[in-house]
């Protein structure tokens, strides 16, 4: 038995689209320890959603293994999966679409308990309390709740079965700024109290930074940089990570520090040869277009898939000067 709660090894998810193979996830590996948070970050089409859908077994991976508490989930039948599903729950992005409008909050939260044949009576009140709602909310319908309250209901439902792992798929993306902070704080408190592990997916780097212990930056189905939060955010060694970080408009930073990438994420059905990021990279050299870089350590706790990993930026700067980047 390993000390990991979740271990994903060389996961591949391939789709067929109009007779072309799309490698949505192309060899992703990571581990997650109990009570910790792993954040997957990247833009549309990077494979982060396919990865968590595979972990939830909402889709069957093409190859690779997903080991949860020592059991490989990839080849289990639906019936064999069932006891494990109790331990892996999910909170979805849209609290409007993910709650059944015809069910009361009480029914929504107790449904997983009933499905697994467990006593629901007192549990619902406890769960409502845990997520900062009152027992008076139990009889309400989702339409009577605000977006933030709905997301709290979604979190309560995910926690109903006392899972060891909760998948958070863009948990605050559809919420207002002031409500976002409330939910992020709540998720942290719950983790401190219950010791649940989170697998977080977000396109929002600041959310990932706020919640995660470990981070993997994904691009076109591959991990381009991974490590502890400190390692990844302290030294954005991969040019993609660095440009992603610098592209986020923030209140504190001036726009002159920004790296604006040219072009767009290529079609995943026809990824560029060599390093997938090479056509958009501000420092690509000849080798980059032929040879796929492997993940290699750039520090004790950080790995990066780049032939020319970047040094740590000087303090107070988000990236290389704009005028120096046209290499």
């Amino acid at each position, binding site marked *: 038995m390993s000390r990991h709660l979740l271990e994903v090894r060389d996961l591949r998810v391939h789709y067929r689209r109009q007779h072309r193979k799309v490698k949505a996830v192309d060899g992703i590996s990571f581990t997650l320890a109990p009570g910790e948070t792993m954040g997957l970050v990247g*833009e549309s089409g990077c494979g982060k959603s396919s990865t968590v859908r595979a972990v939830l077994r909402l889709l069957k991976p093409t190859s690779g293994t997903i080991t949860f508490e020592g059991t490989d989930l990839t080849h289990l039948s639906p019936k064999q999966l069932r006891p494990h599903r109790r331990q892996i729950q999910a909170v979805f992005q849209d609290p409007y679409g993910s709650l059944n409008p015809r069910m009361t909050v009480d029914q929504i939260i107790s449904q997983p308990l009933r499905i697994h044949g467990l006593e629901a009576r007192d549990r619902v009140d406890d769960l409502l309390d845990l997520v900062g709602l009152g027992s008076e909310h139990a009889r309400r319908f989702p339409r009577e709740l605000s977006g933030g309250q709905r997301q709290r209901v979604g979190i309560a439902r995910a926690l109903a079965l006392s899972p060891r792992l909760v998948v958070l798929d863009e948990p605050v993306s559809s919420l207002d700024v002031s409500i976002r*902070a*409330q939910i992020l*704080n709540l998720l942290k408190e719950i983790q401190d109290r219950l010791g649940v592990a989170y697998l977080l997916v977000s396109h929002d780097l600041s959310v990932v930074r706020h919640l995660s212990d470990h981070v993997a930056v994904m691009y076109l189905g591959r991990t381009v940089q991974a490590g502890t939060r400190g390692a990844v955010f302290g030294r954005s060694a991969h040019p993609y990570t660095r440009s992603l970080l610098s*592209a*986020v408009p*923030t*209140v*504190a930073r001036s726009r002159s520090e920004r790296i604006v990438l040219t072009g767009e994420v290529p079609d995943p059905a026809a990824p560029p040869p060599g390093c997938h990021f090479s056509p958009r990279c501000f420092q690509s050299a000849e080798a980059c277009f032929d040879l796929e870089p492997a993940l290699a350590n750039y520090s004790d706790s950080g790995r990066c898939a780049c032939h020319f990993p970047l040094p740590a930026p000087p303090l107070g700067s988000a990236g290389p000067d704009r005028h120096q980047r046209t290499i």
Partner: protein
Amino acid sequence: MSATILDVSNLSVVFGKGSAAVPAVRGISFAVARGETLGIVGESGCGKTATGLALLGLLPSSGRVTSGVARLGNRDLLAMSPRELRGIRGRRLAMVFQDPATALNPVLSIGRQVSEAVAAHNSELDRAQAKKRALDLLEAVGVPDPAARYRDLPHVWSGGMRQRAVVAMAIANRPRLLIADEPTTALDVTIQAQVLDLLRLVQGETGAGLILISHDFGVVAEMSDRIAVMYAGEIVETGTAGKVMETPRHPYTAALLRSVPDLDLDREQLEVIGGQPPNPSLLPSGCPFRPRCFLSGGRAVCRETAPRLDGEKGSHQAACHFAAELAIR
């Protein structure tokens, strides 16, 4: 003194009728100068989108303007007939919407839609000339090889490219004022950076005023010369971007700035604005932000009197009885 393009005073918008009427915008005033970017920031339901739609005469049928004057040049947008507005919209005043997937007609080629935007206000151009202009515009907004992609349907293009096409349509007639409502919210961050750069570029070239409406303080901070923060249908703070962000004088602005997770800062807990924005039809007495305010401390004046925008006009104003206390903190 810079030339004012748009001067809005006392704009109010109401949705619904009679006892079900909901005030969405409550007597706001602002101005935009030539080449200037005004960022309007706030959360859902604060009235920022209704403000933009009212100026364009595009409010849904349940909404109506109940007071106000909006001068574009020497004419009042709010007093125009639909026909007069049609003559101005797309020519003097243009809009970039949030979602390029729904702003474009899915069954017409992108080229045709851009050339229509050109032809609508230039009846002297024939088809070939309008097409030529459309190609120039697509080129100008950074669409690679527009001639080869002219006949593409919108779904073939990526979100970022579609938003470029929408921007091309908006600037087709070199409008004096652009209104962009969440122009990059539907886009990935690296593409967002490209589109923001593009908006700055076209603004620099056309000298248009820009009203940028967003919930994202980062986007607004980066783009704006001046900022207006809206809450419950009112502008609660406005001023130059530097002043509003560095020395906010309204507790809502201050709290909003602190509740955003920061990429350059590790914080165990985010500062939270308790509760949620008020229901616009059940506003609390006095200051609408009072129930969520960390500064009020239950003081009577906050409960009894709605604060008005106070301070140096054009430089920095806030609607808070105790703005001075915030400055000291």
